[in-house]
């Protein structure tokens, strides 16, 4: 529905690039391909096999094209970005819309908040009549028809050349400013169009600062949404939804699948709904919940057991109903994420489902997650609840998850 509805508001998107080149993960590619193949193609148009960064590039291009007040800015945006996600955009849309900024994360996001907030500051524009504007747009875009900017929002696409780790430098502006901008002003102002993108997660050799999964920090912040795609196709649709979402969105992209190919990413403009979890594989013995690249690992671990695999996609606000319905069916739940287990988002899912399904549960809720250490380099295969580039360790981690599944099933 959002696809056809032009939402005019201010928002931004920050994308963090990284210079490391990722080696292909063909086995993951096969898994993702099979996972994606089960999706209903959301939009019309033939798909092409493209990887994550190309899908992101397409989404950004669509966003820039569909609203002349869209901007991409940040570190290394101009030449295409370290992850190549903004390739060609500066040339196509101009340097005033796609431009580099000084190296300062909080400056970038603070700047982005201010730019996004301007859509909610309006003046009476005599050339535009209220009657011409659909009321549905008017009602949430702060009297857009009265806007000096003549009905148009400002799309912001902020781009960083840094890992998600450095994203934590933004946390002040995300938590204290973006998340509270609407609430604290009594809806006089908002920066709802802000979309903050960042690559995250392990890549096999990132060490402390190029491997982290800090989604839990942001899930503890009322007022923003946290979205994590599992594949290029999901990434493009969810990113376009996030951009058009009238609330600030933090959009994490699993680095490990950046260069992965995916079957069928529709070429045109399409969106995927936020806050709707997806059952990507049906089963009856146990419910597995995850997000991002972890899903492919979890699917591999399903071997021999009838697992119902759910991609949460939006972590806050998350779709409790879908997970609850699944657990009511299977009676068991296992959550898996790369982030450290203590205080991870799996704890929130576990607690909520226990509250809702206590009498139905046949086993304790299991969590298979990263360990409570800083993300280590040489110890990554031991740390992670997932595959890494050292293929020899794949069976080891699959076994870990498989054991947990079996323990839960046999509880």
């Amino acid at each position, binding site marked *: 529905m959002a696809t056809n509805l032009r939402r005019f508001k*201010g928002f931004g998107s920050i994308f963090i690039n990284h210079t490391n080149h990722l080696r292909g993960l063909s086995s993951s590619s096969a898994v993702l391909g099979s996972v994606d193949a089960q999706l209903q193609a959301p939009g019309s148009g033939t798909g092409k096999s493209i990887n994550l960064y190309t899908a992101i590039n397409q989404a950004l291009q669509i966003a820039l094209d569909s609203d002349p*007040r869209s901007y991409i800015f940040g570190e290394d945006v101009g030449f295409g970005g370290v992850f190549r996600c903004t390739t060609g955009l500066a040339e196509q849309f*101009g*340097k*005033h*819309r796609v*431009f580099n*900024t*000084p190296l*300062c994360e*909080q*400056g*970038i*996001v*603070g*700047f*982005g*908040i*201010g*730019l*996004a*907030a*301007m859509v*909610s*500051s*309006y*003046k009476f524009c005599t050339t535009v009549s209220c009657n011409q504007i659909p009321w549905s747009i008017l009602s*949430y875009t*702060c009297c857009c028809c009265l806007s*000096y*900017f003549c009905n148009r929002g*400002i799309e912001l696409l902020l781009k960083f050349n840094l890992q998600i780790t450095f994203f934590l430098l933004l946390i*002040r*502006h995300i938590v*204290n*400013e973006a998340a*509270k901008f*609407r*609430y*604290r*002003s*009594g*809806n*006089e*102002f*908002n920066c*709802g169009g802000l979309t903050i993108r960042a690559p995250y997660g392990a890549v096999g050799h990132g060490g402390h600062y190029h491997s982290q999964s800090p989604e839990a920090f942001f899930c503890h912040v*009322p*007022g923003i*949404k946290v979205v994590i795609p599992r594949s290029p196709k999901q990434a493009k649709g969810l990113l376009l939804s996030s951009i058009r979402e*009238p*609330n600030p969105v933090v959009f994490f992209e699993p680095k490990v699948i950046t260069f992965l190919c995916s079957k069928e990413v529709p070429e045109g403009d399409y969106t995927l709904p936020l*806050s709707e979890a997806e059952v990507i594989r049906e089963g009856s013995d146990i419910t597995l919940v995850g997000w991002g690249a972890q899903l492919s690992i979890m699917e591999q671990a399903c071997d021999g057991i009838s697992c119902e695999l759910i991609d949460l996609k939006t972590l806050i*606000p998350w779709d*409790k*109903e879908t997970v609850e319905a699944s657990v009511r069916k299977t009676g068991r739940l296992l959550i898996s994420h790369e982030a450290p287990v203590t205080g991870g988002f799996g704890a929130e899912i576990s607690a909520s489902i226990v509250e809702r399904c206590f009498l139905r549960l046949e086993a304790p809720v299991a969590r298979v997650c990263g360990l409570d250490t800083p993300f280590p380099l040489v110890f990554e295969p031991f740390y992670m609840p997932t595959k890494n580039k050292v293929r020899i360790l794949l069976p080891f981690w699959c076994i870990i998850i498989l054991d947990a599944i079996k323990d839960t099933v046999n509880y």
Partner: protein
Amino acid sequence: MASSSLTKSKTSIIHHLKSTKFPLLYFTNHTSSIRNSHNLLHTISSPPLPVPRCATSSRINPFIVFSRCFESVCVGRRLHSAASASNDVRQFPAEAPSQQVLDFPGGKVKFTPKLAFTSGSTEERVPCYRVLDDSGQPIIDSDSLKISKELAVKMYSDMVTLEVMDTIFYEAQRQGRISFYATTMGEEAINIASAAALHNDDFVFPQYREPGVLLWRGFPLQEFAHQCFGNKYDNGKGRQMPIHYGSRKHNYFTVASTVATQIPHAVGAAYSLKMEKQDSCVITYFGDGGSSTADFHAAVNFAAVLEVPVIFFCRNNGWAISTPINEQLRSDGIVVRGKAYGVPSIRIDGNDALAIYSAVHKARKMAIEEQTPVLIEALTYRTGHHSTSDDSTKYRSIDEIEQWRGGQNPVKRFRKWMESKGWWSDEAESEHHCSTRKQLSQAIQAAEQVEKPTIADMFNDVYDVLPKNLMEQEAFIRKTIKKHTQDYPSDVPL
């Protein structure tokens, strides 16, 4: 002749480069020289250079090293706009034999053989612009704008209104009627005069000590009271502490307690005005303490690089709660920081309403016409406590406070000038004081009686629409309130 001198210069340049081992970019006015010299360029692997235009003279000095600045690493202002000029290649004249100039990334810089550090401190501080002396009399030959009687009367009366509002609301907090308050005492001129110099369609990103800007723009006293009481008429719907005013109608972004976060927001907002080619600017206020934050530095740098129409107005009132200015910084105040970032700056007397008015008026013009940020440091003194949670006599002497409340008081100074022009009198003062006190007392009484926002307003506006988790939580809290009504405030309707 020309070719032989070119050959000589090329040889000497190459010799020089090899001996000094500087990675450098250099230029001669001959295309083949550029091609031959590429193997010596080992800093930037950039695409082949376009052929530059020649310098005026064909004579190449063998010692030079003047060079062409690559466009990508030029310093200086370039219009950051859709219609930005494509060619800002510098042309450098030949240098005298004793000087050497090179173009590192960042632009042309002269060499010097002297090992000397620039001093961290300046012999002489940046002077402070003022129009009125301590007695409120115009200084001869001061640059200032003439203002009309009507404008001056509104400025003065709003300064008085602000003073009275501060007094009455402060007392209300002391009486327990509102939970918190922070006065603007000592900074009335900054508030009112800066607002007077702006237009209503300029956007304001305040810190928290600038309610006078909102007052100037017509925000009613009653609405100030509503916000302080957090009742259902508060624009902020009772969610924030008192003094956290905001009004979209008045282009005044909502105050937040966070220090200096508004500064980069202002830069982003200014960028939107630039892109939309608006005839307006953004102003953002902050204190001396705020100028130490990372947000300030980030924002000023961004504004300079992106060339946006924003006025950075620093209220250097000498205190960041209890931290005096000499424990806040070691630079010559905040004004010198503007220069460090490439931003035109000025230091002004923040207790001189006319100086503030003239400076902000000029700054606004510069910001809009030249699409440049401007930094204003207004020296002033915070005569009130930081807030009602503070007792400043604990860290400064009462004598010091009284001194600044006396002759240097910006309201008194401006009044003296007003009276010298015959535009104000004791009668007018008395009448205005009485009328304002009465209005404010009534406003407080009325605001106190108004009920609070409904419980639903605790959950609204977290997002644009209520998500399911908040619907559940609202249902739960309503159930709890119904069951234990006596444990919850009765003035918040369900």
